[in-house]
């Protein structure tokens, strides 16, 4: 095996989003929900680079000699956005954290997450929040080992969602 330097950098150009879409699909496969991915490369370009972007992204790149056989240098990413806690103020939500399977176990995921935390603190955030599926033991173990706590298990908060017809009806005031 070889040592890989995970270089984590701020992602600016639109060019990378083709590869970003490829890794989104890999993450979805891992979570067994590929048919649910509706966001296209164009959506990402539009929503991430408007004046008040809906999200921010950082990527991990490896040097040329460690590129994958398909030629990918971007081997992981984190996507996050700013949120607000009415009790604590500014916060961050990390929507995705992903490292390609062959680059795991080298500190890249940790480096990405640390970078998100650093960016959040610099912006005055006091929380970094994210979600994980309770059966996803490798991820759960990883996160807990880094010092976070399980808000759902410890405090009893459940995530709720309205979408599709329920959202439309709600918006029309029909409920």
């Amino acid at each position, binding site marked *: 095996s070889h040592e890989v330097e995970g270089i984590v950098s701020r992602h600016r150009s639109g060019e990378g989003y083709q590869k970003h879409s490829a890794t*989104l699909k890999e993450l979805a496969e891992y979570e067994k929900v590929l048919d649910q991915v*509706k966001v296209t490369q164009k959506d990402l370009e539009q929503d991430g680079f408007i004046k008040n972007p809906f999200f921010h992204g950082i990527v991990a790149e490896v040097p040329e000699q460690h590129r994958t056989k398909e030629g990918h240098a971007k081997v992981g990413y984190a996507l996050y956005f700013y949120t607000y806690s*009415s*009790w*604590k103020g500014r916060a961050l939500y990390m929507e995705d954290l992903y490292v390609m399977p062959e680059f795991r176990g080298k500190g890249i995921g940790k480096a990405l997450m640390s970078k998100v935390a650093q960016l959040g603190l610099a912006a005055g955030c006091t*929380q970094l929040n994210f979600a994980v599926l309770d059966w996803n033991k490798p991820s759960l173990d990883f996160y807990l080992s880094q010092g*976070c706590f399980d808000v759902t298990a410890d405090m*009893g908060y*459940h995530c709720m*969602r309205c979408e599709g017809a329920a959202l439309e009806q709600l918006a029309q005031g029909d409920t």
Partner: protein
Amino acid sequence: MHFKVRAAAKEDCKEISRMIMELAVYENMADQVKTSHEDLKRDGFSPNPFYECLIAEVPDEHKTKDGHCLAGRSTCGHVSVSGQRQPGYTVVGYALYFYTYSTWKGRSVYMEDLYVMPDFRGKGIGTGLMAKVAQVGVEKQCVRLQLSVLEWNKPSLDFYIAKGAEDLTAKEGWHFLRFHGQTLDTLAKEAPKD
């Protein structure tokens, strides 16, 4: 009861702060509130705000002895939206929300708080506030409205489920995790240099 829902103005921050505390008391977590009305003003009313807020108001003739409005007997639920403070109205509820992103589905809206003062519940005000959040979201092409609720808070759980919300924690096993305080500082210190 006649009520109005409108976008919050920065002058509403003291009232919003009052109601945030009332909601925390209801959730048995009053000691957790650290935000001041100045924080709310700075974070909600800058060019790139961290949140948006809607206010529900009732006419002043319904005032309680401590200056808030008392529930009347009629149950007319007229909802209108205006960005301006209406003279002769008092604030009795709010919804605080912000935009989020799902890499699978795109734009979403997250409703952080929904609160109506106890004397004014059961009159459609909570529904009016939440419907307006949904409407604002849909206008911005959001495909989801998300929120969280404490599992013991049965009245709220029932309210949201009646509106078509699904409990993703129960259904799919989603858990929220959090770094804060010391654990967040420790994590950030380990970030690679640029």
